[in-house]
């Protein structure tokens, strides 16, 4: 892991000097701000049962589904398309270091983007001058959920990028995988064929993997180690498959 820091600082540096990063960040903030003002507007009309923070994080999947593929699709696909992966892997660097460097840089960007949305709550707090309306519990839980689930989502994006040399293909693949991971278990859990007794262990398993209910738990302040384990093991698995993906392409180049 000697070269990991070199690779990571290189990746982050390249992100920071690239103007398109700032344009993407600005558009992301614009989009999230739009969602946030809409939520506030609905609160001003009718009293709601949940706090604004809770409502805001209920829509977490919209930015995740679009931002994660955009952040990760370039990582390994671009290296292979340009052929720079060849110069990279002929230095004493392992594939694992390359993949981890890319992954951590993408995760850093993901977290940085989400962190900027905390500005919305700060502005709201300045405006109303009372933490009572902001509800810090769900807010903290919501950001924790974003940080933990982001580990897994970004890893899935990197994995998709390892499979193709075409950025567009990698991006769409990541999008589809994310939709399946986020909504798949929820729609499976409601389907009636799982209600049979013999399938009850399977139904339990599907229940555990429901990302949408994990979010509810986190914002309610319930942090379940099973859920943490789900995201951590998913991350590790996706990264291992990314490493294998890069190496398999070399074997069958």
């Amino acid at each position, binding site marked *: 892991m000697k*070269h990991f820091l070199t690779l990571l600082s290189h990746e982050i540096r390249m992100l920071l000097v*690239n103007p398109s990063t700032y344009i993407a960040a600005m558009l992301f903030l614009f989009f999230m701000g739009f969602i946030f003002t809409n939520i506030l507007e609905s609160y001003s009309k009718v009293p709601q049962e949940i706090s604004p923070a809770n409502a805001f994080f209920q829509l977490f999947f919209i930015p995740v589904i679009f931002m994660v593929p955009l952040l990760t699709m370039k990582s390994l696909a671009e290296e292979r398309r340009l052929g720079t992966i060849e110069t990279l892997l*002929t*230095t*004493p*660097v392992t594939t694992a270091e390359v993949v981890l460097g890319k992954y951590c840089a993408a995760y850093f960007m993901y977290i940085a983007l989400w962190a900027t949305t905390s500005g919305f709550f700060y502005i709201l707090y300045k405006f109303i001058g009372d933490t009572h309306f902001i509800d810090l519990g769900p807010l903290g839980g919501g950001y924790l959920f974003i940080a933990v689930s982001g580990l897994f989502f970004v890893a899935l994006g990197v994995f998709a990028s390892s499979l193709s040399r075409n950025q567009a293909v990698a991006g769409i693949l990541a999008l589809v995988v994310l939709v399946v991971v986020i909504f798949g278990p929820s729609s499976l859990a409601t389907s009636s064929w799982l209600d049979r007794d013999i399938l009850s262990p399977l139904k339990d398993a599907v229940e555990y993997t429901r990302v949408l209910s994990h979010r509810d738990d986190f914002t309610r302040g319930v942090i379940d180690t099973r859920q943490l384990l789900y995201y951590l093991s998913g991350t590790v698995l996706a990264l291992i498959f990314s490493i294998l993906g890069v190496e398999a392409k070399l074997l069958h180049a």
Partner: protein
Amino acid sequence: MNGAQVSYLSVPTADPRFDTMPDAPAIEVSHLVKTYAGVSAVNDITFTVARGEILGFLGPNGAGKSTTMRIITGYLPATSGSVRVCGVPVASQPAEAKRRIGYMPESNPLPEDMRVSEYLYFRGRLKEISRRKLGPRIDEVLELCDLKRVRHKIIGKLSKGYRQRVGIAEAVLAEPPVIIMDEPTIGLDPHQILIVRDLIASLRGRMTVIISSHILPEIEVTCDRVLIINQGRVVAQGTPADLRREILGHSTYHVELAGDAAGLPALLATVEPTLAVTAQGEPDAGGFRRFTLTTDSNDELGETLLRALAPAYRLRSLNRGQSTLEDVFLAATRRSWDVRSEDLRPRK
């Protein structure tokens, strides 16, 4: 920007840290085989490169040059066979072997959005050069490759010649004992080719260099030894002079003379039994005709030939035909599948 400028700049010798086994040859390739989905790209190649030698790799497109180079660098795994770099097996100790190699791939891929000095710094860090040494070393290679003026330019905006030199600078950056360059002079103008040639020549004796090229005179001037491969096999190897003798197997002379040509074959046979006229031209205004003579002998026959011909004919010119490496290359690659390097060793 002239070629001589490069040659008097000193190139430090290969870093002794990497030379744990100074007696082992720089590169040992034995019985290397690589198959892609059943098609063999490299078929049982064996060769050794001594320390400090410059080896030229020749072959038509798709002969397996790039594949062989990629296997030596550890980028691609071999199907069978073994490669050792300075005594270190590439397959089982890839990191150790990669520390000993500076590699420039065929298309010379470079990141588009980095500055030249940034790129070299990043690559230097990956190649484990300490921060303290890296700054002066980057200055050295920039000077060596005549890149000082573009050090702050973005690589994507450089011309082909500069990009190629950035690739070369990157390959020599860590002072590895072995440098492998896949077509380093492709796309360069004659002036830049001269610079690159001098650069490679300045590494002679200090670093082992393998280069592949399509430009045959290029290889002929720069390389100590040439390896010609075709369809994944070594079809010829040796110094350019050896190869010329070995593959072509005959020498040619051109004479221009006037007089009765009927007695010429008999006269030639007295000089050297295998000497024969293979082509003759039409007499020009002065009655001189041009004859092409071929012999299996490799000895210099010019003087005896002159003595023999002078009393009988009016002689205007005599010269020995210079077969180029190009002829050797064409002859060697035209040979059948079954011709192996073993059959082509000089018969002594």
